[in-house]
C-alpha cells in the first residue's frame, strides 16, 4: 500500500478540462518529481491533494484512508503538508505565529483555552535552529525577512508537525545557488526519515538529481511515469513537450 494514492482524478474549471483521469502514487521515503509545462495541471493536482480544490471525480487515499471528503485542515492533521511557491505566509505576523497558524498550542486557564505563546516561541526557535536557518529575530514580522529567510519559515511550518507527505512547489525557483543545495539536502533528509516528498520543479537538473521517480503531466494527463535511475534528460523533456522538438529542447536543458 502506497502512502499517497491518486486514482483517476479529473477536474474541470467550467469548460476547461485541467485534469483528465490522472493517477500517481508516492511511497514512504520516496521522492517523486512532478513535472510538466505551464498549464499541464501540476498545481491543480497538488491543490486537490491538499484539499484546496475538490476533484470532480477520482479517488485519493493516504495510508489507505479515503481523504477526498476531508477538509484542508483535516488533511494537514493527517500529515499532508505543502510548501507553496508563494510561501503562503502571513507577513505581518511573527515566525512562531506563522509556523503554528491554525494549530496553535493551547493551555487552559480558568476553563478557557489560551494560546500558549511561550511554548510556541520555544518550539519555533528549536525548529528554526534544527533547520540551521539564520533569521534576524524570531519575534519579527516575517515580511521583514529576505526571500530565503521567508522560505525557511515556510519549510519550518511544513516540518514542525511530523508530516507523512511533503509537497514542494518550485522550492528552488527563487533561491541563490548555495541555497538550492540546502533545499536538495533537506529533501534527501526527509526521504531518509521515511517521509514521502512530491517535488514540483521546472529545474530538471534538480529533479533528476534528487528524485526516485518522475511523473510527467501533459495537458492534464499523466504522460509518463519514469524511474529516475533509468531515464535521462532527453526522455523527460520528450515526455513534457510530447515528442515534438525533442532534440533541441533536451539539448537546451542539458546545457542547464
Amino acid at each position, binding site marked *: 500500500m502506497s502512502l499517497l494514492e491518486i486514482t483517476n482524478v479529473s477536474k474541470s474549471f467550467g469548460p476547461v478540462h485541467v485534469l483528465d483521469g490522472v493517477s500517481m502514487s508516492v511511497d514512504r521515503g520516496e521522492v517523486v518529481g512532478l513535472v510538466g509545462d505551464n498549464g499541464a495541471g501540476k498545481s491543480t493536482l497538488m491543490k486537490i491533494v*491538499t484539499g*484546496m480544490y475538490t476533484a470532480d471525480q477520482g479517488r485519493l487515499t493516504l495510508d489507505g484512508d479515503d481523504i477526498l471528503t476531508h*477538509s*484542508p*485542515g*483535516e*488533511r*494537514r*492533521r493527517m500529515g499532508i503538508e*505543502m510548501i*507553496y511557491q*508563494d510561501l*503562503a*505566509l*502571513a*507577513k*505581518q*505576523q511573527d515566525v512562531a*505565529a*506563522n509556523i503554528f*497558524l*491554525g*494549530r*496553535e498550542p*493551547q493551555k487552559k486557564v480558568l476553563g*478557557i*483555552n*489560551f*494560546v500558549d*505563546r511561550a511554548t510556541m516561541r520555544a518550539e519555533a526557535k528549536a525548529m528554526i535552529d534544527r533547520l540551521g536557518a539564520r533569521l534576524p529575530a524570531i*519575534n519579527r*514580522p516575517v*515580511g*521583514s525577512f529576505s526571500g530565503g529567510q521567508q522560505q525557511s519559515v515556510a519549510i519550518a511550518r511544513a516540518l514542525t508537525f511530523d508530516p507523512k507527505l511533503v509537497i514542494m512547489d518550485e522550492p528552488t525557483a527563487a533561491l541563490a545557488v548555495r541555497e538550492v543545495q540546502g533545499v536538495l539536502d533537506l529533501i534527501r533528509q526527509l526521504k531518509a526519515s521515511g517521509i514521502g516528498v512530491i517535488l514540483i520543479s521546472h529545474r530538471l537538473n534538480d529533479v533528476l538529481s534528487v528524485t526516485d521517480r518522475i511523473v510527467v503531466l501533459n495537458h492534464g494527463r499523466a504522460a509518463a511515469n519514469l524511474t529516475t535511475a533509468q531515464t535521462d534528460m532527453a526522455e523527460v523533456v520528450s515526455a513534457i513537450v510530447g515528442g515534438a522538438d525533442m532534440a533541441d529542447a533536451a539539448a537546451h536543458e542539458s546545457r542547464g
Partner: protein
Amino acid sequence: MTSPDAGRMRPGPSLWSRIQSGAIERFHIRIESLIVLLVLAAAMAVLSPYFLSWSNFLNIFLATATIGVLAIAATYVLGSGGLDLSLGSVMGLAGVVGAWVAVKAGLPTPVAVAATVGAGALAGFVNGLIITRAFVPAFIVTLGMLGIARGLALVINHGAAIYGLPAAMVYLGQGRPLGIPMPVIIFIATAIVMHILLAYTRYGRHTLAIGDSENAARTAGINVQRHRLSLYTLSGALAGLAGLIFATRVNAGDPTAGLTYELTAITAAIIGGTNLFGGRASILGTMIGALIMGVLQNGLNLLAVQSYYQQMAIGAVLILAVFIDQWQVRKESRV
C-alpha cells in the same frame, strides 16, 4: 574609535525606533497614538480649567463608552481585512428594538437586553451571510445595511423615539455603582474581554491571520468563510451592545441614534494602530484611539466649538491617521 562621532556612527536601530517596535511587540500599540493622547489632554488642560477633574475624567469615559464599543467592533472587522459601515445604523436599530420590546411589548428587562444585543447580532449575521455566501464585497453589503437598518429603526415606531424604559434597564445607562457610571463599567469590561480574545486566543490570532493573508489562513486549514461570518455577527452584537448603552443612558430608543458613529469608530480603531487593510490590530490601541476621539470631542465641547466643526475635525483626523499609518508602513518597507 575614540572620535566623538563613534557613538553616533554605530549601526543599529535608534532608541526611538526600539521604543516604537517594543510598544508594538509588547503592547500591540503605536507609541505615537499614546503621545498624541497625552499631548491632546495636556493642551485641553491648559485651555480649559474644567478639563482636569475627576468628574470630567468620568465624563470623557462616559462619552467614549458608546463609540469605544463600536470601535472595538471596527477593530476586529478591520483586523480581518473586512469593513463594517453599518455599525452606527445597527446600533440605532438595536436601541429601538430593545425599547420596543421593553415598552411596547412590556417584556422583562433581561429579555429586552437580550433582544437589543440580539438584534445587532442578527443584522451582523445577515451582513456576514451575504459577504461569505453571496460574495458581495463587505463595503457594499454593510453600506446597504447602513441604509436598511436605519430605515427599519425609523419604521418600527414611525420615526418617533420610544420613551419610558423600565427602571432596571435605565440603571444600565444611568446607574453609578461606587460612583462609576455603568456605561463606563460595561465599556471597560467589554474592552478587557475583547482584548484577551484578540491577543491571546486562537480566534483572535486567526482573525489577524485572515486579514494578513487570506491565502495563508486558508492553506493553514482555517475555515475562512465561517470565521468571517462569526466576525460580522460579533461586530453586530457589539453594535447592539453600544445601542443598549446609548438607549439606556438617554432613556429612549431613538431611531436616529448612532448617526455617522461608524466614521468615529473606524477613525478610533485606525488611530489606535489597526491596519486599514487587515493583519494588525489591538484593543489597547483602539482604547487609546477612542479616548483621543473622546478627549477631542469633550475638549471642543468645553471650548464651546459648534458640533458641525467637530464633525469636520473627526473626518480630518481619520484621513490624517491613515496617512501617517501608510507613511510609517512605507518607511518600514514592510508589506
